[in-house]
C-alpha cells in the first residue's frame, strides 16, 4: 500500500514556484487556430504541458430535430480527456467530472455566442484534452472560443480562462498540476475581458474573502493577457495582407 504522499514545498526561498515561475506569471502559452481540416473551426491551445484541442461544427441542422430551440441556436458541448492524457489511464467512459465540466464550459461560452442569429440549429463544441497538467477546463474555454471565432460564428467577445490558486499561503496565477494537487485552493475563472463579464467561476478549496478578492483580480489580469494572445493569433491568421 502506497504511503501518503508528502506535500512538496510549493514556493521556494526566493518566492518562486515549483516550475520556477513568479506568483503572477503564466506558463508559456501557445495557440494555433485552424488545425483541423473538417471542423468549421478549430484551435490547439497549450498552457505549459496542458494541451487542449477544440473543434466547432455549426451552426448546423440538428439531429434529432426536436432538440432545437425556435428562437436561438442550441450549444452542445463535450469536454473530455483522452485516455492517455493523464498519469493513470483515464477510462474513456464519461466521468462525472467530465459531465460537470462540459456543463460549466458550455455556460462559460453561452454568454458570448450570438445564438439568437441562428434559430433551430446547433453549434457543437468538442474539447479534447491531449495532455493534462492542470488548468484543462480553462485552457479548454480559451481553445473553444478561438475555435468558435475560427468557425466565423458571431460573438460578443472572445472568452479566455485561467485558474488561480493558493499554494503555501500565496495566491498564484495559472496553477499547474502539482500546485492543484498539493495547494490549498484552485479557482478556475473565465471572462470576456472586453466587456468585463465573468462567465466561469469555480473554487475548489478554502479562501478568506480578502484572498478571494486578490485571487479574482489576479485571474482577470491573467485572462486579459491570454485574451490579447487570442486576438493576436486570430489577427495573424485572418489579417488581409496589403501590398
Amino acid at each position, binding site marked *: 500500500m502506497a504511503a501518503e504522499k508528502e506535500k512538496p514545498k510549493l514556493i521556494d526561498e526566493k518566492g518562486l514556484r515549483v516550475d520556477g515561475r513568479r506568483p503572477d506569471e503564466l506558463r508559456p502559452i501557445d495557440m494555433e487556430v485552424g488545425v483541423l481540416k473538417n471542423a468549421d473551426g478549430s484551435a490547439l491551445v497549450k498552457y505549459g504541458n496542458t494541451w487542449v484541442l477544440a473543434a466547432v461544427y455549426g451552426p448546423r441542422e440538428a439531429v434529432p430535430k426536436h432538440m432545437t430551440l425556435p428562437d*436561438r441556436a442550441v450549444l452542445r458541448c463535450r469536454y473530455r480527456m483522452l485516455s492517455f492524457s493523464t498519469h493513470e489511464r483515464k477510462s474513456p467512459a464519461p466521468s462525472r467530472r467530465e459531465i460537470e465540466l462540459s456543463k460549466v464550459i458550455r455556460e462559460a461560452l453561452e454568454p458570448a455566442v450570438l445564438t439568437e442569429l441562428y434559430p433551430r440549429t446547433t453549434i457543437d463544441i468538442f474539447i479534447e484534452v491531449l495532455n493534462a497538467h492542470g488548468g484543462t477546463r480553462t485552457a479548454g474555454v480559451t481553445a473553444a472560443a478561438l475555435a468558435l471565432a475560427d468557425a466565423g460564428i458571431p460573438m460578443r467577445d472572445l472568452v479566455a480562462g485561467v485558474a488561480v490558486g493558493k499554494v503555501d499561503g500565496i495566491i498564484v496565477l495559472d496553477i499547474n498540476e502539482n500546485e492543484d494537487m498539493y495547494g490549498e485552493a484552485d479557482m478556475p475563472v473565465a471572462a470576456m475581458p472586453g466587456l468585463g463579464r465573468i462567465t466561469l*467561476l469555480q473554487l475548489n478549496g478554502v479562501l478568506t474573502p480578502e484572498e478571494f478578492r486578490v485571487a479574482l483580480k489576479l485571474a482577470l489580469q491573467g485572462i486579459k493577457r491570454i485574451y490579447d494572445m487570442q486576438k493576436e493569433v486570430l489577427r495573424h491568421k485572418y489579417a488581409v495582407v496589403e501590398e
Partner: protein
Amino acid sequence: MSVTPELPIIPKLKANAILNLLARGQRIDKRRLDEYREITIKTGYVPNAEGSAYVKLGNTQVLAGVKLEVGQPYADAPNEGVLIVNAEFIPAASPSFEPGPPDENAIELARIIDRSLREPRVIETNKLAIIPGKKVWIIWLDIYVLDHDGNLIDACMLASMTALMSTRIPAIDVNKETGEVTIKREETQGLLPISRLVTTVSVYKIGNYLVVDPNQEEEALSSARLSITVTEEGLIAGLQKAGLDHLTETEIEKAIELALNNAPKLITAIREAAKDIRAKEGINSEGG
C-alpha cells in the same frame, strides 16, 4: 454532451410582476431580496439510515441520508475514510424530471456538495480508519429531491450537513486473524466526527437584481447563479457559477456579501436541528 436547456415558460404577466417588484426591492411572496423562506429541518427522519435529514425550504422538499459501509481506502490516503456523494432528482419532484441516471444538473449539485464538504475537511476522515491501509469507513451520502420549488442546492446542502451531524457510527467486530470486519448496526460507537459546519448560499441573478433562495418561478426567470460555500468561521470554501448569463465583478462582490450575511442563520438552523442527537451522544453541537 451538455446542451443548452429549453427555458421554462413563464407567463409574461407573471414575469413582469416579479421584475417590477424586484425593482422596488420586493418579492412576489413579500420577502426581501436577501431573505430565505421558512426552513424546517427534521433530523433522524429515516430510521434505517445511520444519519438523515429532511429539509423543507419554502415548498422545496429534500431528503438526505447517510449509510456507512466498510471498504478499502484510496491508495493515496490509506488511513482516511471515504466520502461518496450522490444526488437524484426523482421524477416525483417535478414535471421536468425524468427517470433514469442522474443528469448533469444532479451530478453538478452532488459535486458542489462533495467539494463543499471535502475541501474544508468537514468530516474528520482521518479518524475513520478501522484497519489502517486496509479497512476504512465509506460514507455514502445520498440526496433525493422530493419536491422542486427552487434553490435545490441550498436545500440539499442543509440536508446533507444535518444528516452528517446526526450520523452515528455503528459498532463493529474485527476478527483479529482474518481481518474481517462485521458491522453491528443495532449498536453505535458514537457520532461521525465533524470538525466544522458549512453551508451554501446560492445567489441568483434575475434581470439586474441579485436574490437568494428563489422559488421555482423566480429561478426560471433567473439568468445566472453563483453558489457560495461558507464555513462557520466565515471562510469561502467553494464557488460555482452556473447559467446562461455572465456576472460582473461587482455582482460577484455583492453575491459574496449576501452569502457571508446569510450563512450564519443557515448554520444556526443546522446546529439547532442536530442539537438533540448530538446532546444524546454527549457531544455538544459546537462540532467535533
